[in-house]
């Protein structure tokens, strides 16, 4: 592959609950990345195309991207919508540039979790209508079943998972986009209201609204925009089986597979050593140890130990979620793209108080589906 693609600008909104409309949220980000790069939507002179991530259920709107057309340059412009996690949109935008069809692509993702009265109402519709949906399953139930299976298989404790929550809140305090970070302890997590055992209230990401945008550009054009480039080094994704009992939920084979392919593309042999910082989508606390296993930061079943030993904390060998991550609030859909944006900030050295010093290679991860049925892994480098 000859062509190289870089991230030239990123922007995020605050992650909070508010009364902004979807397009207004997205525009807050679009305005920032356009200002920063000096690009416009004028045909042939700036942004060639937009890839947006949103979902008809979350927006309660058929063809949810019609609502944001005016702010992403859809006025006689090209726009495509990825109806999955935002990391998938970054992945697709990257391929769109490699294809030669576009040189500069705007990527956005948005979601307002505060719009539906309950998030579970939406995720319940994610199950097949014959065998699972009538039983009242939703993402939270599925996550609890996975958490139990995982913790049982490898002897991971709730206390270990709670450490991921505490770490997220601690890191989140350094992130100006986070509004829900608190001083909490492992005991606070363990004593919070049990919703679906073994998952209690603080094990779950809080309700927030938010959007994220970034601009991807091919090498030559990217270099004209900024000197501080973040390159796409390796990308892949992978689907897993759908039914919860089709696989052993204690493992995440599709993540293993997606990560392997992305590492191969980026020329990474030892992720723990070679990757300096990771932002991963952990909607529930048990997912931090589980996903870090899948990503090969440690062996199977060793994710808890990784947290115990502080390998993934700030200053550790591979800080995971210096931004606080999804556990301190980052909505569905936006979550994956925000992970990419955070890694870009880290590699640009613009992450402020949450900066991992000297970060040169970073990993961003996004996931869709009740128990990680689809994982997307992106390796970025300076």
């Amino acid at each position, binding site marked *: 592959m000859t062509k190289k693609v870089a991230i030239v600008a990123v922007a995020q909104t605050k992650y909070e609950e508010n009364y902004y409309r979807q397009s207004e949220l997205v525009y807050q980000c679009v305005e920032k990345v356009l200002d920063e790069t000096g690009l416009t939507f004028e045909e042939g002179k700036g942004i060639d195309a937009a890839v947006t991530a949103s979902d008809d259920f979350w927006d309660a709107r058929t063809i949810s991207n019609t609502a944001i057309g005016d702010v992403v340059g859809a006025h006689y412009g090209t726009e495509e919508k990825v109806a999955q996690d935002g990391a998938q949109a970054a992945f697709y935008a990257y391929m769109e540039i490699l294809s030669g069809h576009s040189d500069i692509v705007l990527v956005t993702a948005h979601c307002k979790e505060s719009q539906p009265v309950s998030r579970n109402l939406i995720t319940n519709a994610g199950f097949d209508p014959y065998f699972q949906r009538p039983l*009242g*399953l939703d993402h939270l139930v599925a996550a609890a079943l996975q958490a139990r299976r995982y913790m049982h298989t490898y002897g991971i404790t709730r206390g270990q998972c709670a450490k991921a929550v505490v770490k997220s809140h601690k890191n989140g305090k350094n992130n100006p986009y986070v509004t829900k970070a608190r001083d909490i302890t492992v005991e606070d997590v363990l004593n919070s209201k049990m919703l679906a055992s073994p998952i209690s209230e603080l094990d779950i990401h809080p309700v927030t609204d938010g959007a994220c945008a970034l601009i991807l550009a091919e090498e030559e054009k990217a270099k004209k925009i900024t000197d501080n480039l973040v390159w796409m080094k390796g990308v892949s994704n992978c689907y897993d089986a759908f039914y919860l*009992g089709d696989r052993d939920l204690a493992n995440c084979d599709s993540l293993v597979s997606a990560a392997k392919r992305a590492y191969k593309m980026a020329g990474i042999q030892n992720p723990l050593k070679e990757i300096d910082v990771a932002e991963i989508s952990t909607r529930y606390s048990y997912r931090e140890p589980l996903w870090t296993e899948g990503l090969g930061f440690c062996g199977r079943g060793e994710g808890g130990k990784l947290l115990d030993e502080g390998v993934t904390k700030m200053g550790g060998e591979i800080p995971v979620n210096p931004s606080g991550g999804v556990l301190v609030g980052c909505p569905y859909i936006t979550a994956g793209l925000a992970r990419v944006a955070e890694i870009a900030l880290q590699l640009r050295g613009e992450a402020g108080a949450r900066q991992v010093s000297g970060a040169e290679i970073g990993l961003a991860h996004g996931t869709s589906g009740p128990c990680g049925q689809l994982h997307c892994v992106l390796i970025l480098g300076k």
Partner: protein
Amino acid sequence: MSRKEHDKWAYSIPGKLALNYIYYLGDFNTKFFTELRDNKKILGVKCPKCNRVYMPPRPVCGRCLSKLDEWVELSDKGTLLSYTVVNYSEPYQPAAPPIIYGIIKLDGADTGFTHLLGEVDAEKLRIGMRVQAVFKDKREASIQDIKYFKPI
């Protein structure tokens, strides 16, 4: 518009998204659900290529895309692979909380399937415990024709 404008003017209007859906079972699923309704039989399906017996049964093997039609009668007994006690309430749930869900691997199947657990003390639940299906008296060709699984 600034944050001030947001705080001054913006609010929310209660509404809903309401649409009706109807999902046909299809000939394949119809076989499973009518056997369940009429004979209290739980059928799995075997993939001749992957040599796996699937529960829930499915007309196509997701791994090799083979058409599946080799029905296998499964036991109404199985092993619990995972479980959770749900303490929150949503309109789509089949019962008031606490609701216990489990993933159950029926004897004769290679995959687990999700269902409810009943007649069990939440404290006594453990992975690996043996459970058995309890059928409803009045069955309507629905997954809820199995009332729940109870410990043996």
